[in-house]
């Protein structure tokens, strides 16, 4: 693949919002490197029994579709209509008021009118009208209907992979029409004729067969965590050993692979380990349910279930009482909106989660039997179970990025903020403008399996609204860290802020907890978990970090 070069920020920030003169049915997408994700290699599809594995390439004219691709798509669409009321309804009731238009980060970043959620939906809706509605059959284009052609399919591919399923449009829609739902189902239609993106399928197939998106084997998974535990010991003098697949542990801890795979997620992982050590928590991690994230759900509801089911299955095998989940966005969307429904019942082999430290019973997780680490930590802090030295976070001026999924598909706003305020010195936390946080938060621009390198130009455009709000607090308050409770954010935001606001760091919230936790038997800490000198210890650290 050709190396993608992204234009300079000054170039990218010149967005042209003027729609083309031609009507949208006559405009075809241009597959330019940097603006699409590569086609999935056949081996991934074979690993998970997905249909029509074949070698094909996005810029090619011929996508090597199966001969009856059109019948398949229409039959699959009919099937989805019969199984999802949401789809019928969202197709039928949109009035095209345009309230969603300037809410989409991809529209704001690209200026492409087909990235207005209403238009993106219309790309699918026009086919629905043509084949499932009398008006579309009779009046055709006048009714906003059009034939399903290969060009239409390519257009779906292009724009359904410029939607991060973030639901910001759905907050503003007067009827709650959720583009995310249509994007997901649209991607299912594409997959039914073997059109998938490589970044998603590679992650899914690796997760399915090995245990995590990054394809770590059980032994590699252990290596990574053991290494982070050693890092903890080196920096804090505290041993934070991890047990693997330990039967009879009270709690199974599951977090996305992003948290043990690479910086800066790994620092959050170190934070978890320190926190659990501090509490002497009876927990274990699993090499089988080693992935909290779920790229499967980005490609279909069924694949989401095929990956998600590992969590409960492993909890049952290990005989734990409940599950603790790490900081992750789409993982928690799946956990909150789908997990028990996928499973078909509330798992009877688990107990209603109860914090062994504070005795708090998590009534809100009575059926799900899984607790979010931010809920768990906030409860600990509220009950004065943690001793912090906030001066260890004094070098950090933080703003908090509400990740789309916990924000708009769950509603977890207060816990992370509560933790932040307790682990940072007074006056070190600054909110971004109100129209860019909480339920109105802007996406990182790379979620929903779009964090592929070859997609960099569009990623940087899609993340522009987020970065721009971060820029605002960086200029105004000197904010130097962007906090989040999402492993995908920790994987994608560093690239984004590095592009738009060099010098800005991305951090998980539990990393800050790990920095601040005071252990009775720790060594004197002179650095944070990233080996950066704490305030007051700069000169001791030598020359490279002079501030």
């Amino acid at each position, binding site marked *: 693949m050709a190396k993608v070069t992204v234009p300079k920020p000054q170039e990218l920030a010149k967005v042209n919002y003027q729609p083309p003169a031609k009507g949208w049915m006559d405009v075809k997408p241009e597959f330019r490197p940097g603006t699409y994700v590569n086609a999935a290699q056949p081996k991934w599809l074979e690993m998970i029994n997905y249909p029509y594995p074949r070698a094909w390439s996005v810029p090619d004219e011929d996508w090597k579709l199966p001969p009856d691709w059109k019948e398949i798509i229409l039959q699959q669409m009919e099937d989805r209509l019969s199984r999802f009321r949401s789809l019928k*309804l969202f197709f039928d009731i949109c009035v095209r*008021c345009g309230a969603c238009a300037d809410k989409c980060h991809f529209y704001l970043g690209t200026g492409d009118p087909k990235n*207005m959620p209403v238009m993106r939906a219309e790309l699918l809706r026009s086919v629905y009208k043509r084949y499932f509605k009398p008006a579309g059959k009779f009046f055709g284009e006048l009714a906003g209907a059009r034939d399903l052609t290969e060009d239409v399919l390519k257009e779906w591919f292009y724009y359904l992979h410029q939607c991060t399923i973030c639901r910001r449009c759905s907050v503003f829609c007067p009827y709650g029409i959720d583009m995310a739902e249509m994007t997901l189902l649209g991607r299912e239609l594409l997959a039914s004729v073997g059109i998938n993106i490589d970044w998603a399928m590679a992650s899914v197939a690796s997760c*399915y067969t090995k245990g995590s998106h990054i394809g770590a084997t059980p032994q590699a998974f252990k290596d990574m965590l053991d290494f982070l535990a050693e890092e903890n010991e080196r920096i804090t003098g505290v041993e934070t050993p991890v047990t693997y697949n330990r039967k009879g542990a009270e709690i199974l801890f599951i977090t996305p692979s992003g948290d043990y795979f690479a910086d800066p997620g790994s620092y959050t992982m170190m934070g978890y380990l320190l926190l659990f050590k501090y509490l002497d928590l009876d927990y274990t991690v699993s090499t089988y349910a080693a992935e909290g994230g779920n790229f499967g759900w980005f490609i279909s509801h069924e694949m989401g279930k095929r990956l998600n*089911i590992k969590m409960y299955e492993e909890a049952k095998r290990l005989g734990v009482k409940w599950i603790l989940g790490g900081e992750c966005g789409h993982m928690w969307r799946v956990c909150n909106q789908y997990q028990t429904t996928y499973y078909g*019942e509330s798992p009877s082999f688990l107990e209603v989660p109860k914090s062994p430290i504070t005795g708090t019973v998590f009534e809100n997780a009575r059926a799900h039997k899984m607790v979010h680490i931010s809920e768990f930590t906030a409860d600990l802090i509220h009950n004065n179970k943690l001793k912090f030295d906030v001066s260890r976070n004094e070098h950090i001026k933080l703003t908090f990025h509400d990740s789309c999924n916990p924000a708009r598909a769950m*509603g977890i706003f207060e816990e992370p903020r509560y933790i932040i305020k307790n682990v940072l010195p007074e006056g070190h936390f600054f909110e971004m403008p109100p129209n860019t946080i909480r339920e109105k938060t802007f996406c990182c621009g790379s979620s929903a399996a779009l964090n592929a390198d070859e997609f960099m130009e569009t990623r940087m455009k899609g993340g522009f609204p987020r970065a721009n709000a971060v820029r605002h607090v960086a200029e105004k308050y000197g904010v130097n860290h962007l906090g989040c409770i999402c492993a995908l954010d920790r994987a994608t935001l560093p690239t984004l802020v590095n592009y738009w606001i060099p010098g800005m760091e991305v951090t998980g919230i539990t990393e800050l907890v790990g920095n601040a936790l005071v252990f009775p038997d720790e060594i004197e800490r002179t650095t944070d978990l990233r080996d950066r000198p704490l305030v007051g210890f700069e000169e001791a650290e030598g020359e490279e970090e002079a501030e």
Partner: protein
Amino acid sequence: MTDFFKMHFLVPLAAVLGLMAMAYFGAQANLQWVFGVAAPYLSVLLFVEGLIYRIVYWARSPVPFRIPTTCAQNRTLPWIEKTVGEKLDNPEKFSHVVGRMALEVLAFRSLFRNTRTELQKHPDYPEGAKLVHWSYKWLWFGAIAFHYAFLLVILRHMRFFSEPAWGFIHRLESVDGFVQFYVPVVYLTGVAMLAGLTYLLARRLFNPGMRYLSLAADYFPLFLLLSIGLTGFFLRYIYRTDVTAVKELAMGLVTLHPVVPAGISPLFFTHLFLVSVLFAYFPFSKLMHAPGVFLSPTRNMANNNRWRLHVNPWNYPVKFHTYMDQENEYREAMVEAGIPVEIPLAAPVEEEK
């Protein structure tokens, strides 16, 4: 290649003008029974049947997952307080959902949240530009003005269909006409309705993005409603017709003893026919957003998945990679790494699934 905008704008305009001409000249050509009786009855039939058909069509598909869009803090630790507004924006139980729906339907809650975002030049930033977001209530205001005005106009028209006219109609009329600057008294709702519609049409025409995405199905109802409003306006204020005769016609229709009295102007039949077309068109159009919003799963469900199971009627077992699949593949390496396994290395490995 036809111009997309022109086609989607002009065809519905021509259609509405054609419908008007049809009724106007039809009434002059002694087809009063067609436009005064047959059309209204047919349209009501289509309206009711179409409405039922469409709602049943929607309801036939299940709601497999509970997917409310959460716009505030969810239920969590008891000491994290939630305001009433937050409970309605992220409902925990049925009563919250009722509140959320009520706000949505009666106050257009989500539209009230509307913001406008604009890219502005900002030389201080290296990228030279800044996105500015601000609260933008005009769409909400225009929409709510039109909808409520239309509702009140419909209620006022009930005086044609009740004998004696229901009491609330008189009160409504006196409030509606309290600004007395013209004879006959000008109803504010009529003015608001026309103003609201004009705004909704203007934004489709003058905002390039809106013009790009608007379809004939967006212009047609606007033209139809505008023509209904305008013909009504003319009937009341300029070319008045015999109101007693109109009432006789209306009462005949609702009592199922239709009569067509003499003295009703063709303009009135035009007005009535346009209303009939609206009724007939309603169930087959985007106007179904009105009943549809009640069924919207992102708004009408409580965010209570974590403590109340939602059952998917078509949930089916899926093939998945089991723990034993993993162990069978990596047993040796796992043992070497000190990870506990189900079947020790020495034991036979093959027959285990």
